């Protein structure tokens, strides 16, 4: 029975990782930018939720649209007026640029929001669904459902709407997309904005499940990273499967081997997948081929 409980915990955690990974993987797959500030942007969303809850007693679930819109705008401006100037540079320049941004944002949050660990605890935080010997907190269940709904919505957006198709077209062939009247600068900005908006939402959901401080930004980015690698870049269903896999793997390895080897196992698996199948478990060739 304990195995089932661990599996459920892993899946619940995994959906959250999937949500962080979706935005990260979308940005990487389309614009070829590994956004190392992804975790920091998620934390901006988390702090927004925290302050809204503290000052106006706004329910964290209701602040999801707020953090989405705020981080969407932030991401749009960032790509339009900063990243777009360097997207054609060598890849490690982009890595360092986004890391510079991460250092800036993390220090900004530490200076103005303090390095203390914060958490948001609405009145219903302690309630759980009890099925026999299995306990599922309602909040985690809600977070899981929201993550899955957003993943499905994103997949539909990319497949069915004009902007979604334009994003996919740009990621496949930038010249051809320009010829069919797509402005890649705007599409890149839109993609980055979506990625950041999703990061903001995952930040909001983060406040509900664990305590946070600016110092966990790097850990969040690395999780997003592993999820993208496991699932394959730019694919929503890939990120979903990668996230669930990582969640289950983390909880099981914590139970079987010990909490302290959690990261080593996750990274070991990532490096292994990179070596054996660099396109990810779900990756197709044309998505984010190695561009130099």
């Amino acid at each position, binding site marked *: 029975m304990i195995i089932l409980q661990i599996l459920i915990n892993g899946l619940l955690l995994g959906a959250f990782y999937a949500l962080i990974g979706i935005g990260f993987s979308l940005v990487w797959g389309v614009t070829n930018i590994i956004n190392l500030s992804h975790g920091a942007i998620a934390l901006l969303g988390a702090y927004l939720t925290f302050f809204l809850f503290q000052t106006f007693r706004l329910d964290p679930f209701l602040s999801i649209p707020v953090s989405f819109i705020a981080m969407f705008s932030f991401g749009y401006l960032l790509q339009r007026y900063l990243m777009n100037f360097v997207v054609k540079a060598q890849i490690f*320049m982009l890595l360092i640029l986004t890391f510079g941004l991460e250092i800036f944002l993390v220090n900004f949050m530490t200076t103005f929001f303090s390095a203390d660990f914060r958490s948001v605890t609405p009145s219903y935080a302690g309630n759980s669904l009890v099925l026999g010997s299995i306990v599922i907190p309602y909040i985690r269940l809600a977070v899981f459902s929201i993550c899955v709904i957003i993943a499905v919505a994103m997949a539909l957006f990319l497949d069915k709407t004009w902007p979604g198709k334009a994003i996919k077209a740009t990621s496949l062939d930038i010249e051809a997309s320009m010829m069919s009247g797509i402005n890649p600068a705007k599409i890149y900005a839109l993609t980055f904005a979506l990625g950041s908006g999703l990061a903001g939402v995952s930040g909001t959901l983060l406040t509900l499940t664990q305590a946070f401080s600016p110092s966990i930004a790097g850990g969040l980015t690395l999780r997003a*990273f592993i999820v993208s690698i496991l699932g394959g870049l730019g694919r929503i269903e890939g990120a979903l499967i990668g996230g669930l896999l990582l969640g289950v793997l983390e909880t099981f390895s914590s139970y079987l081997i010990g909490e*302290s080897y959690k990261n080593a196992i996750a*990274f070991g698996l990532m490096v292994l997948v990179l070596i054996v199948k660099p396109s990810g478990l779900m990756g197709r060739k044309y998505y984010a081929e190695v561009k130099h």
Partner: protein
Amino acid sequence: MKKKNVISFALFIITLAVLPHLVSGYWQRVLTQTFLFASIAVGSNIIIGYTGYPAFGNIAFFGVGAYVTGVLTTKYNMAFVATLPFCALSGIVLAILLGIPILRLKGHYFAIATVGVMETIKELIDNMTELTGGGLGLTLPIMQGEPEHIYRFFYYAMLLCMLFALLLSYVISKVKLGYALRAIRVDEDAASVMGINTPLYKTFAWALSASAVGIAGGIYAYWLSYIDPHTVFVGTYSVKMFAMILLGGAGTVMGPLLGAFTLELISELIWSKFIAIHGMVLGLLIIFIILFIPKGMFETFKGGFSFRKLLTNLRENSL
């Protein structure tokens, strides 16, 4: 090397050799720290600049080197100087073992795999409590003698390490290996067709690069006299190293050295003035370098400083 360059380099080294007798302990410490970063930047430039493989996690070798010195001096009572060859060896062996699978990856994937390797090694060391002290850290034997003498010892040790890295980098740039590496950077497939054994050369380059970084780690451990996984496997060091290489000019012998001096001294000046926002300024500085001087100061300002060149650089990589 032109005669003028040789003379100015000799003057530079003589100045550095005399300096500890002239400046305060604070500046000796700052310079020692600068030499440390210069060693890392110059050493890593062999794989990053020459070969074009963005080894984002090259600091892994630094951390391993630090732990090699730490473990050998505490558990096996070895003299500090005797541990340094083992630091270099640890880097070489690790780079060869990791290079065989990982150097097949390219671009982003390589960069990320090295970060993954660094984090994994960090966590393994964190968990090998009996040998490394784990999260509690490792306290190294403190050097005996006058504080003044000790400061100078580390100053010269780090200076020598930097010179070793420079020599390595210079020699590589002049021999067949260096030409092969540059060919790999420009076009790996073409290099392979030309008869260059690319996997062998890449692995060799990474091993040499790792040896210089490993020695720097060993000296750092003894200098600090206390290490734990979080003080030697630092992500920020990777970024600083990259910023230094870019600022000075990747793929040149002297570029990373000058980049290290510029960035570290600026950083030190900022540190002493605004401690609270130091990190924010460092972040902005890195963004500024990438936007305006991605080719390095020397390439950009060859014919004198001008703002137009900065704008040209900005336009070059924009969408």
